[in-house]
């Protein structure tokens, strides 16, 4: 199993959630983060003083899936989260050693779905 970590633009969450639902992904974890890459941030003006806001709000999605779903899920997220403008985000795929369902104690792929 692998964890798919996706940094996306906040307003794209609903599109991504719907896309994942369509291919059968049951759950995910979302956190609010700030960051920047090539997307520079923007400048603001207040009472004669200009300043630059570097860190932009983003959402981080974490989805852990069995190996056979990884490519499908990753592509679904890419398609749903893309706007074509700088700042769309990135996806990182990491190996996961073990997963355990807290309620039942199940391990492995059965704990994921």
């Amino acid at each position, binding site marked *: 199993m692998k964890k798919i970590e996706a940094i996306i633009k906040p307003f794209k969450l609903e599109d991504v959630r719907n896309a994942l639902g369509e291919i059968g992904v049951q759950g995910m974890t979302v956190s609010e983060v700030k960051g920047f890459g090539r997307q520079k941030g923007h400048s603001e*003006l207040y009472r004669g003083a200009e300043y630059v806001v570097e860190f932009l709000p983003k959402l981080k999605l974490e989805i852990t899936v069995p190996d056979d779903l990884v490519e499908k899920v990753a592509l679904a997220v890419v398609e749903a989260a893309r706007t074509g403008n700088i700042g769309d985000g990135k996806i990182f795929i990491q190996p996961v050693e073990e997963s355990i369902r807290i309620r039942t104690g199940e391990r492995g792929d059965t704990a994921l779905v």
Partner: protein
Amino acid sequence: MKRTLAIAIVMAGVLAPAVAFADDVTPGQFFANNVWMMLASGLVFIMHLGFATVESGLSRAKNTTNILFKNTFIVCIGILTYALCGFNLMYPGEFNGWLGFAGFGLVSPADGNTTAYADGGYTYWTDFLFQAMFAATAATIVSGAVAERVRLSSFMIFSTIFVGLVYTIAGSWKWGGGWLDQMGFYDFAGSTLVHSVGGWGALAGAALLGPRLGKYVGGKLNPIPGSNMPMAAVGVFLLWLGWFGFNGGSVLSADPGATSFTLVTTCLAAAAGGVSAMFTSWFTGGKPDLSMSLNGILAGLVGITAGADTVSVLGAVLIGLIAGGLVVGSVLFFDRIKIDDPVGAISVHLVCGIWGTLAVGIFSTNPEHSFMVQLIGVGAYAVFAGGSAFAIFGILKATMGIRVTEEEELEGLDLAEHGQHAYDLNEGPGFLEAATAPRPAGSVARELATSEQG
């Protein structure tokens, strides 16, 4: 014929008591005048809602409780000191023109509730209350300029002395019939006596305090944006509303012509100031600045306050337009000389207060008003109000200190001075904040002990 006679007799009976009072003010007019003046007192009181929200809106959330506390304190101590001694310092009756005192406390003269008291304009009690509201507004001007870093206790001491003694003695020179009044100086509703006096206090405070941490670091101007623009905007509109009483009530009666004309000049100046500031800030900054535009409205209001009843319609508009441009330039100027004024109080009240005073000398339709006398007035208040403010803050700075520590400033005065937040910063949109919210002392220790076992 009989009916007409009967009516005439009834009318004579109704009007006869008026003849027994002083002047030609009828009981009905006295009632109307006093009701308007009481309403005006309430409208001026509304300015405190305005100050509270403007100041909260233009400063950071971590200091909001502190700002509101200062505003609350000032209105309370202002009214109390005015009752104790302020009213009688400002209106000492017959005096040498410089310093007089009519005694502690409020004692209504025998004719205090009759038309003989104030030409039928209002009662003694209305007189006190209306003027007390003005005193409190003068003091509260200072709180905006010293926000986010002034030590609370020092500020409370400063305000009490400033509103109790400085504002009142200064006011006696003109409204109390003192030497400036004798000289022909004119300040209809307080551009000088209220706004510039408050403005001098604001300048002294901001200058002696120094800028907020990080404001001018690295040789650059680093903005510290306000936390709540809706509050700031609502606050300005509340102040504008309050000005209906501030200027409208300064007619000191409900005279239809004078009051209605004054309200018009007041509103024209406010509108002109707003528009002028909008376009000036657009020009200087490349984009129009909301907070400066709001300052522009106040600038126009402060500017018209000295001459609202004696300038023409065109004069009012011009005074407002110039005030709006002045306030933007002034905000930028004070930042350039590194005097940090979070809300623009110095620019709105001192700079435009002086402008309003001088504008009487330029635009007044009354030939007895002169620019030179107005200028003398400006100078007199600069020396007295400015000097007193610097002295009081200076002594406080040398003795107990007037600024919070760096740590306190970074932590926020809400926590440092009051131990409480204005906004419940833990109940955010995130459940994480709620889950890790602080709990009452004691419960945490118990839970830690329990988890140790499990």
